[in-house]
């Protein structure tokens, strides 16, 4: 544990860097997955196509994706952009499905009522469907956020410094405490971000507070992916 005490600065710096790398893919994934999820929900044809594609993208191992993206997009393999794009792809792959499922979970009677009182499709989406789909979308966002934070560490293999630095450095120098500190910090950041997302969800969706909607959101990941590329 001496190592940890002597290197608190390094751990703090890498944690900040880690968070800085994790936030753009999470936000981008969220923004991009809304129109994609809507398309998947709205039309039968695009549903099969988009959700199958999302399922397939998600099966690509991270290291392979980090190698394939640069020549495909013409960027440097050793750039932050490479990692950001790869992680955004995973985030979209997770969230597009949950946005589609979330919109599907909105009671059709509510949708019809909104149409009946004169809501156009744009306002129907933002004022009725999107907020009501919120809890399920949030569940997907939480899964995407946690897995993104954990996947940032793989970036160290292509030279992007994050808490993953503690893994390779600790391994090369044979310091167990260093790797352990890295794993613990990644888990702590993931849990804190997860908690913050729940908190934001409660603030933005006050109607979910009293019902115990938090519980189904904790369902583990296989459930959404199970219905994937099948």
């Amino acid at each position, binding site marked *: 544990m001496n190592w940890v005490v002597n290197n608190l600065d390094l751990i703090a710096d890498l944690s900040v860097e880690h968070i800085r790398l994790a936030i753009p893919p999470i936000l981008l994934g969220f923004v991009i997955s809304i129109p994609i999820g809507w398309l998947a929900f709205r039309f*039968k044809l695009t*549903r*099969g196509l988009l*959700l*199958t594609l999302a399922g*397939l993208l*998600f*099966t*690509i*191992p*991270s*290291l*392979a*994706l980090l*190698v*394939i993206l640069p*020549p495909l997009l013409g960027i440097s*393999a050793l750039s932050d952009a490479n990692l950001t794009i790869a992680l955004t792809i995973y985030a979209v792959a997770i969230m597009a499905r949950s946005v589609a499922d979330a919109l599907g979970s909105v009671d059709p009677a509510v949708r019809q009522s909104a149409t009946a009182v004169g809501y156009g499709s744009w306002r129907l989406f933002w004022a009725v469907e999107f907020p009501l789909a919120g809890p399920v979308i949030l569940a997907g966002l939480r*899964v995407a956020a*946690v*897995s993104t*934070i*954990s*996947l940032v*560490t*793989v970036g*160290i*293999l*292509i030279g992007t410094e994050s*808490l*993953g630095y*503690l*893994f*390779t450095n*600790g*391994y090369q120098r*044979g*310091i*167990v405490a260093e*790797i*352990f500190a*890295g*794993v613990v910090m*990644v*888990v702590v950041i*993931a*849990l804190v971000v*997860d908690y913050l997302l729940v908190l934001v969800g409660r603030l933005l969706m006050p109607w979910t507070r009293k019902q115990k909607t938090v519980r189904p959101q*904790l*369902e*583990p*990941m*296989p*459930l959404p*992916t*199970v*219905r*994937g*590329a*099948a």
Partner: protein
Amino acid sequence: MNLFSEAMAWLFAPERYTGADALQIRIGEHLFYTFVSVLIAAAIAIPLGYFIGHTGKGREIAIGVSGAARAIPSFGLILLLVLLIGVTQKPLAAFVAFVLLGIPSVLAGAYSGLEAIDRRVIDSARAVGMTEWQILWKVEIPLGLPLLIGGLRSATLQIVATVTLAAYIGLGGLGGYIIAGLALRRFDQMLGAALVIVALALVLDGLFALIERFVTPRGVAAGRPSDVRTRSSRARAVAE
């Protein structure tokens, strides 16, 4: 696109298929690590998941564990276990890491498969005099099989990805080409190997998709057309 043709040239070069570093050996290693780990994870997680799903005991713990496990960085876990178990026992350490990473998905697949069953079906089984053991084997397990296969599917894919990372500790497998290529700046080799890894993952995913369809009890498949929006209704009518 030039790099892609170089990667193809690397892939199809005759020397790729000879010697100790041959592609088929690396694919074999990759599959060996994956399958053995999935089997061990299944041997541990399926009975546990069935116990949780059948009795309803420990459900909260199972959900918590599988949720929290997602936050653990697999790359860090492998390196940590190698140092803890011993640098001389790298394969053992790697297997422990793979199994640990595979368990949550299989566990979730096993218990959610049982949990997703309509309670009335189980009550009916009990009402016609089935013992708990019969209910488990004749009702719950067959009905829960598609979700269990789904759990095995995610576990397999996650382990395939993690075996790739494990090449960093010199475990072999297809990731070895990428790790070596990174040091040597051999981009054709890295890209060629990455494409093989993607192909491997997609083939495994496709196999599991087939198995999933195959194990779905006929009665269940017939009773859920509303859920399957990806197929056209005409094909369904023909099938029936």
